[in-house]
């Protein structure tokens, strides 16, 4: 691959990740194009771009998932590359292919890598060939083979779609009696979600941790590994809080995890940023789960600990440059990311899109906020209700935890219900403080009814301030208007100190 310049990048995404990518483009002096649906007209990411193309109505199919409209926007603006962010079209091999066919650079892996890793069975084969440990299991099991395969593995076991990812259609099976029913349900779900009903049977490892390794490949066979992320705190396979490094990964284990991830990346000549996910068993054994061929939501914790900018690394690889300093990046300190959502944990995590009257952001040392809005804004009902990610860095885990608590106490989304109290409660649990958790901990905690728990007492002063505000008492924000300072020239009189025309 020869070096090719990138002068203008179209960001085919929205929300916090579009804003985050646009900021790196600005730093590099690369011109940027945002694409936005009608409901995102006033979104922060639109304001951070050099150009914007409104590509359609709110429905993702007609805007952020429309390959034709995105390519047309790239053509009309003269963009020479497309960054897909995460979600939407990021892991669609046909999109990457269409981008390249249009003569543009796809800032991501090759369509071949995306397709390979998108198919769990083939990805697992690739992992095995590369000498990466995989869970004992059977791929593409036919119905008549189910019982025998299950008996070989033992119960409980896990059924998951070959084609899928993100926990969709995944289910635990505890006995032979329910196996057939579980398999047919899983096939239906897999067919509906991925148009492919092949299934994988796998040993159920419990309690397990979800550990993933960040890699960046140059597309020519060189791959850098940037440590692991601890992503075990999940609810329904949706991550809630991530850390870098993991408190339970020793330097020796890190070496082995990184080696495994690099071997897989090298075997497929991986290009760009990717994540190799592993299940870590209590005995320290780890197994390949899947490889995500995109920038992850939780990439900032790696950036803070390794002192890198993964979007800029993606750009460098896309230009045909090497991995440079990534190969020698070393970890420093500890980072924690908390995902802020417009949702109501008290009501089954129902999304609560709407207007944010006021977004109070934490400030101070070691704080990074990657958010979809600034000051105020809205969370449209049409997309994932994530508002942003609060990322903190500390010199060690204890300091990072203290900082996360402080930063979260400064944070508020006024105007809509959010998961802030839920996150605050997690940070107060002994299992979080002691890093003693696994992928089922949060759900078990919720089921045990330990959240929301008794709310913090509300100071009486706050109730009086509430009553006073309802009466329009105090100085109201709306009526205050911009603060006016006296014009220094008025104070000095008509005569300008520097004379006319200065």
């Amino acid at each position, binding site marked *: 691959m020869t070096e090719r310049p990138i002068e203008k990048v179209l960001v085919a995404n929205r929300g916090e990740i579009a804003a985050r990518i646009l900021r790196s483009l600005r730093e590099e002096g690369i011109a940027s194009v945002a694409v936005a649906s009608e409901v995102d007209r006033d979104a922060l990411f639109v304001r951070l771009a050099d150009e914007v193309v409104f590509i359609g109505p709110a429905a993702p199919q007609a805007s952020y998932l429309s390959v034709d409209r995105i390519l047309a926007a790239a053509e009309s603006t003269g963009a020479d590359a497309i960054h897909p962010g995460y979600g939407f079209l990021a892991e669609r091999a046909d999109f990457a292919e269409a981008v390249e066919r249009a003569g543009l650079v796809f800032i991501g892996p090759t369509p071949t890598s995306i397709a390979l890793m998108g198919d769990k069975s083939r990805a697992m084969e690739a992992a095995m060939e590369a000498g990466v440990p995989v869970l004992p299991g059977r791929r593409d099991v036919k119905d008549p083979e189910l019982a025998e395969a299950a008996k070989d593995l033992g119960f409980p076991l896990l059924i998951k779609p070959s084609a899928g990812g993100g926990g969709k259609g995944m289910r635990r099976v505890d006995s032979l009696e329910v196996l057939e029913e579980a398999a047919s349900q899983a096939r239906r779900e897999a067919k509906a979600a991925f148009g492919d009903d092949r299934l994988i049977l796998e040993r159920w490892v419990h309690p397990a941790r979800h550990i993933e390794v960040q890699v960046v490949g140059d597309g020519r066979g060189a791959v850098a590994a940037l440590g692991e992320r601890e992503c075990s705190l999940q609810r329904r396979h949706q991550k809630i809080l991530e850390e870098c490094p993991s408190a339970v990964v020793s330097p020796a284990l890190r070496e082995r995890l990184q080696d495994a991830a690099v071997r897989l990346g090298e075997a497929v000549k991986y290009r760009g940023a990717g994540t190799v996910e592993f299940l870590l068993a209590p005995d320290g054994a780890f197994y390949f789960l899947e490889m995500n061929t995109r920038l992850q939501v939780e990439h900032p914790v790696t950036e803070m600990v390794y002192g890198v900018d993964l979007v800029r690394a993606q750009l460098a690889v896309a230009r045909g440059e090497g991995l440079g300093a990534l190969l020698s990046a070393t970890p420093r300190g500890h980072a924690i990311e908390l995902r802020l959502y417009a949702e109501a944990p008290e009501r089954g995590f129902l999304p609560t899109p709407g207007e944010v009257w006021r977004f109070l952001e934490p400030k101070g040392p070691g704080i990074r906020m990657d958010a979809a809005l600034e000051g105020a804004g809205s969370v449209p009902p049409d997309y994932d209700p994530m508002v942003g990610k609060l990322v903190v860095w500390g010199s060690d885990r204890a300091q990072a935890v203290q900082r996360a608590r402080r930063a979260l106490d*400064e944070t508020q989304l*006024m105007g809509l219900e959010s998961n802030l109290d839920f996150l605050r409660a997690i940070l107060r649990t002994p299992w979080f403080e002691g890093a003693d958790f696994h992928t089922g901990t949060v759900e078990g905690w919720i089921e045990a009814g330990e959240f929301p728990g008794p709310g913090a007492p509300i100071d009486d*002063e706050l109730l009086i*301030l*509430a*009553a006073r505000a*309802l009466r*329009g008492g*105090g100085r109201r924000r709306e009526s*205050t208007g911009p603060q006016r300072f006296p014009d220094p020239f008025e104070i000095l009189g008509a005569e300008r100190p520097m004379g006319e025309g200065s």
Partner: protein
Amino acid sequence: MKARRDVLDLGGEPVEVQWKNDDAFHVSGAVAERPVAFRILHESQGECVIETPRGLRRVFVEVRDGVVEVFCGGTSLRARKALPTDRGAVGDDGDHANLVAPMTGRVIRLEAAVGDDVEEGATLAVVEAMKMEHPLQAPFQAVVVELSVEEGDTVDMGETIVRLERRTEN
């Protein structure tokens, strides 16, 4: 300044709050009969700093559509004035009252006209919301000074429907 008496609906038990601003900076009163007093050190743009016996508190306050949200260092509350059918909710300073829509809905009946003398407890309007009728009643003997809507109008939660002024007996 006269003492105010409000009943706040925090999504559970109503809480009675009495308070007055002795001057621009001193607030005193009671919450559910617990006495409270504090000083306001700073107030602007929806943010204030108050001095309490437990130290300084930085408080953010926002009001929209009859709902107030207060945030203070990791704890927050949402409240609105308690339902107008709860007598205490609508007494303004004791001489005026605004009957407001308890929920977003439709005014299905207006049972008073501007200028009417009404008795305490008289139903003046009925709002239908969530398939339930919510009567709005006079909290004291009063004169209707304003009707802000017509029958059939849709109203937002907290929107004023009837304004009353206390009728003084001669």
